[in-house]
């Protein structure tokens, strides 16, 4: 079994299984050569995208061990387990647990554990399930080939050409000539592996400020159980939030399925929140909305609740009657619940913007973001009074056969296939385009308020002027009045 990939217009072997290796086939060999030697080999095209997504789902799964998981290259994962090992009984049990679980899932994995990412990388690839004690990095690296240093192939080849074939040889060589001849990268990699320079791994996901988790005795399947467990986790989370004087703004519920799939549910809140019952209700809405998307399979074995974003929590004193009048907490909770169920764009508030183009004068902002701005002092929007009650987001073209005077209102117009006779009209109100946004070529608009025979009032505009350009002006319906 061979995996082939296209490299420089040739199909080459990208990966191969043990049987193929036993036939003395190698990586990088041409597929044509391999077929010539063994006509019966099976060749499969490589799928880098699928490999990548598999690696990402594995990285998700590894979130159970530490929040700091990074993807390394095409086939590796970095786990920063600083401060996490004791949760799994120490470094060796943790390493065994990772390998055992991966083996159960059908992966052949190699792992190394060291105090620097570079040493762990080398240990995983060349030692196999090895733990490198702090300070022993040099001993580990010395006998290893140059590939263990994570350097460019070109640099490796030129190092080998001068006779430096092991990492130990490079380490014992004088540094200055090495840097001059082979570049800074080589020494940086070397120092990183030996722990002389700090190397940070960049985690795939933001690290939550607070996170609590619970491992049920048996995998849970029912939505009710998830809800109950969320309530318990929220209870624990509240203590931490209270200690820090904060409330959660974004909460994430992570469900780890038995077979390695990970499901993340994120909710946002309009104001910092720590009340477990409210958090439970928000997740309830979200779970109700996406119930069909969650596949419990054989059950979830680990449930984690993390606060991705926190903010200062303002303590408010309730009055003696027990009702907290004047604050919009109930409203904020209502908006959060609607948002949890129907998405970010479900509850909107209009915000006036400085623009005289009608459709741009108001932007709809999600409710949660408006309360952040907290600009409640503003009064009614100043501006012209004759604005329609309902505005079409995209002005709808209307057919206008004739106007009495070229610059005047239409006599009849056809909108949505119905002919309307204009009884009376007011206008025009000329609205020029914003030349500082869209250039000088945009046509101006002349707006007319017109009333048809039945008393319906519309807002029509003519785009462009007669004789100003080659094409005739067009008419649009932009809104309706009361």
């Amino acid at each position, binding site marked *: 079994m061979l995996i082939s990939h296209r490299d420089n217009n040739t199909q080459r072997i990208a990966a191969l299984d043990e049987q193929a290796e036993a036939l003395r086939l190698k990586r990088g060999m041409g597929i044509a050569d391999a077929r010539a030697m063994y006509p019966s080999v099976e060749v499969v095209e490589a799928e880098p995208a699928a490999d990548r997504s598999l690696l990402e789902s594995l990285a998700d799964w590894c979130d159970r061990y530490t929040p700091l998981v990074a993807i390394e290259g095409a086939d590796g994962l970095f786990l920063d387990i600083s401060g996490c090992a004791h949760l799994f009984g120490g470094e060796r049990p943790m390493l065994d647990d990772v390998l055992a679980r991966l083996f159960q899932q059908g992966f052949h994995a190699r792992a190394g554990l060291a105090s620097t990412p570079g040493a762990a990388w080398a240990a995983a690839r060349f030692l196999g399930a090895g733990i490198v004690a702090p300070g022993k990095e040099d001993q580990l690296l010395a006998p290893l080939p140059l590939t263990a240093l994570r350097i460019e192939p070109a640099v490796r080849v030129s190092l080998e050409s001068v006779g430096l074939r092991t990492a130990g040889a490079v380490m014992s060589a004088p540094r200055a000539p090495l840097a001059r001849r082979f570049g800074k990268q080589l020494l940086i990699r070397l120092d990183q592996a030996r722990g002389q320079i700090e190397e940070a791994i960049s985690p795939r996901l933001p690290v939550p400020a607070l996170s609590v988790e619970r491992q049920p005795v048996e995998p849970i399947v029912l939505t009710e159980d998830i809800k109950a467990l969320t309530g318990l986790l929220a209870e624990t989370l509240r203590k931490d939030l209270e200690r820090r004087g904060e409330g959660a703004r974004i909460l994430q519920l992570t469900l780890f399925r038995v077979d390695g799939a990970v499901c993340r549910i994120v909710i946002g809140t309009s104001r910092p929140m720590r009340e477990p019952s409210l958090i439970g209700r928000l997740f309830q809405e979200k779970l109700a909305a996406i119930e069909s998307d969650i596949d419990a399979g054989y059950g979830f074995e680990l449930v984690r609740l993390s606060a991705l974003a926190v903010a200062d929590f303002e303590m408010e004193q309730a009055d003696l009657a027990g009702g907290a009048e004047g604050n919009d907490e109930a409203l904020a909770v209502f908006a959060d619940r609607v948002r949890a169920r129907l998405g970010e764009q479900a509850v909107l508030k*209009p915000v006036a913007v400085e623009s005289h183009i009608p459709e741009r004068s108001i932007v709809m902002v999600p409710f949660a973001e408006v309360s952040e701005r907290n600009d409640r002092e*503003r009064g009614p*929007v100043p501006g012209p009074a004759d*604005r329609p*009650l*309902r505005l079409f*987001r995209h002005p709808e073209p209307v057919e206008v056969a004739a106007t009495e005077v070229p610059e005047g209102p239409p006599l009849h117009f056809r909108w949505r296939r119905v002919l309307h006779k204009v009884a*009376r009209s007011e206008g025009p109100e000329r609205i020029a385009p914003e030349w500082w946004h869209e250039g000088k070529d945009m046509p101006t608009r002349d707006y007319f308020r017109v009333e048809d025979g039945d008393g*319906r009032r519309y807002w029509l505009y003519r785009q462009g002027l007669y004789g100003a350009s080659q094409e005739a002006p067009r008419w649009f319906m932009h809104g309706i009045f*009361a």
Partner: protein
Amino acid sequence: MASNVVAQAAVFALRRKIAKIEGTLPEKLVAAGVAILHPSGSAWAEAGASGFLHTGVARLDNVLGGGVPAAALTEIHGGEMRDAGAVTGFALALASLSRNREPDREKRFLVLWIGMSQAFAETGFPHAPGLGALTGLAPDEIIIAQAPKLTDALWIAEEAARLRELSAVFLEIHGNPVRLDLTATRRLHRRAQLAGRPVFLLRQAARAEPTAAPLRLVVSPAPATARSTLTGPLADTIGCPAFTVTVSKSRTALPGQFILEWNPHERAFQERQPENSRPVVSAPAVRPDISPAAGAVVAFKSARPAAAVAHQPSRQQHPAHRGARRTG
């Protein structure tokens, strides 16, 4: 004095008891000019002294038995999609009436508008400056919720109807969906009653069907009058928005059709007076009979012979159909 008050309270209590036995609705008592004491439920107490939004138009208020209920579900129908502007405007105007009766002016006025995404695309998105021009609502007094499906819209409405922070809730539904049945409207109505807030069910292009709402008004646009200036109406202008409101269902079961004008500056309704409406039928060119002169008719002795007078009927003998024609 004290005994007088006690006596009055006793009379009121008795009247309520009698009304209850007779099955008379509180609206009818109000219509009859009898002040009644409301059950001391919190919602009723909070809904204000009367529990009604007075439209300010005496005839309409009488027909509705006091006004539009302030703590109930109210249906406002529009016959066609094109009437969405009139339906929207009328409902908003009604809601803004409740702002005037709010005892605590400092309290925020907040309306929630629930609609469905596709429907907003078809009838237009509520435009805050337009809402402000009509009813004086500031942009931060408006919340808009859009739902992808009817069930979601109903869920939002039910959740919102119980909130006391909201001054009014509008639920906009198109057509006659099956899900909007007696049960769904009953749930909305009950929550509105408990919260003491009006919930307006705007139904575009819908026909009347049984719902739990005690009041159904059918609104269609009416031609506006010209803008009035100090020197008189300004020709060829479009003045205050006007609506034709038909009471299709109410607890008093009195029929009525009104042409109302909404004055956005005074924020008040006004029934259109006959003289400032355009004549529906053109005035006759020749008017055969002239209305009688005022005052008593005194018989003079005729100078001509009596026989000439005999074939002319006297004024008292005028046939009934030729009597003074009522104007208007």
